[in-house]
């Protein structure tokens, strides 16, 4: 099965192969982790670290039923979900810290990059206004280049449900972006 576009099939069996596979998908995993935790870079890093730990210690095992990338994304999503459930107490405490660091994260050195960065920030903020599933399906399809079928597997929903989320998400995002007045076709 090849879930992503132009993604070679890999099925790591030992720890060295696992490490290589994780390194190969590291950038994409980070992007997915960012999407799973409302674009908070600190949370994304924590989640990714926990996921790598789980996988390399054998607490999350790849059984070859789906493509490695799809499985990895499902692990990241589940880890992010459980972290969200556990972290509701810490949320208030971290909120101020998050705000502080988001400012640093989106700021850039030169004015050209800042403009681009601001645009990306606005796009992220608009994406965050979508319901979680809608945001996830758009990320998996447009950012990760996964098919809707593979995205459904990574999200743990049926294909029909994923298609519905996809259609609604595109419509809603289009409306929200239009409201900002910054994004045009």
């Amino acid at each position, binding site marked *: 099965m090849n879930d992503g576009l132009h993604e070679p099939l890999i099925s790591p069996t030992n720890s060295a192969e696992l*490490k290589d596979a994780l*390194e190969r998908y*590291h*950038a994409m995993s980070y992007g997915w982790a960012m999407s799973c935790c409302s674009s908070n870079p600190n949370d994304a890093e924590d989640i990714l670290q926990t996921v790598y730990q789980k996988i390399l210690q054998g607490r999350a095992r790849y059984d070859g039923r789906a493509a490695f990338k799809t499985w990895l994304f499902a692990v990241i999503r589940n880890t992010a979900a459980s972290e969200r459930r556990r972290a509701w107490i810490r949320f208030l405490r971290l909120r101020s810290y998050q705000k502080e660091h988001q400012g640093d994260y989106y700021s850039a050195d030169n004015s050209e990059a800042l403009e681009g960065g601001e645009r990306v920030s606005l796009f992220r903020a608009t994406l965050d206004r979508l319901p979680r599933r809608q945001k996830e399906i758009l*990320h998996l399809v447009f950012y990760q280049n996964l098919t809707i079928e593979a995205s459904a597997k990574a999200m743990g929903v049926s294909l029909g449900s994923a298609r519905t989320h996809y259609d609604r998400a*595109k419509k809603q995002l289009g409306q929200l972006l239009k409201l900002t007045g910054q994004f045009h*076709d």
Partner: protein
Amino acid sequence: MTDHTLKKLFEDVRRQDAQNAPSFERLLRTQRSSENRTSSGIWMPLAFASVLFLAAVLAFSVLSKNSTLSSEEVEQWTAIASWSAPSDSILAENTTTSSESFSTFSDSLFEFVPTSSDKTQNL
């Protein structure tokens, strides 16, 4: 909003993420150090439990040492146990065995009174 526009926007996001992503090696290094922290985190309660155990053993041995009687105390208690008072003879033991019986004047008061069940049987 076309798919092409969305793809382009997501590409910008991806580019920004790629610039800001922590290196894979750094995450693994942090993982190792957190593992070390975890292992040292196990040693701390273990050491604390050991100290508690030793303290408990020490306390028990001290208490048991204190509770053993010295030879002087044994002699003192033996003397008290063997001491007999002049009035001890009054506290004579009962020599009547259970098989022996004797009659008293009041025995006649204990007459046989038939119970209701006896009456029913007689009917």
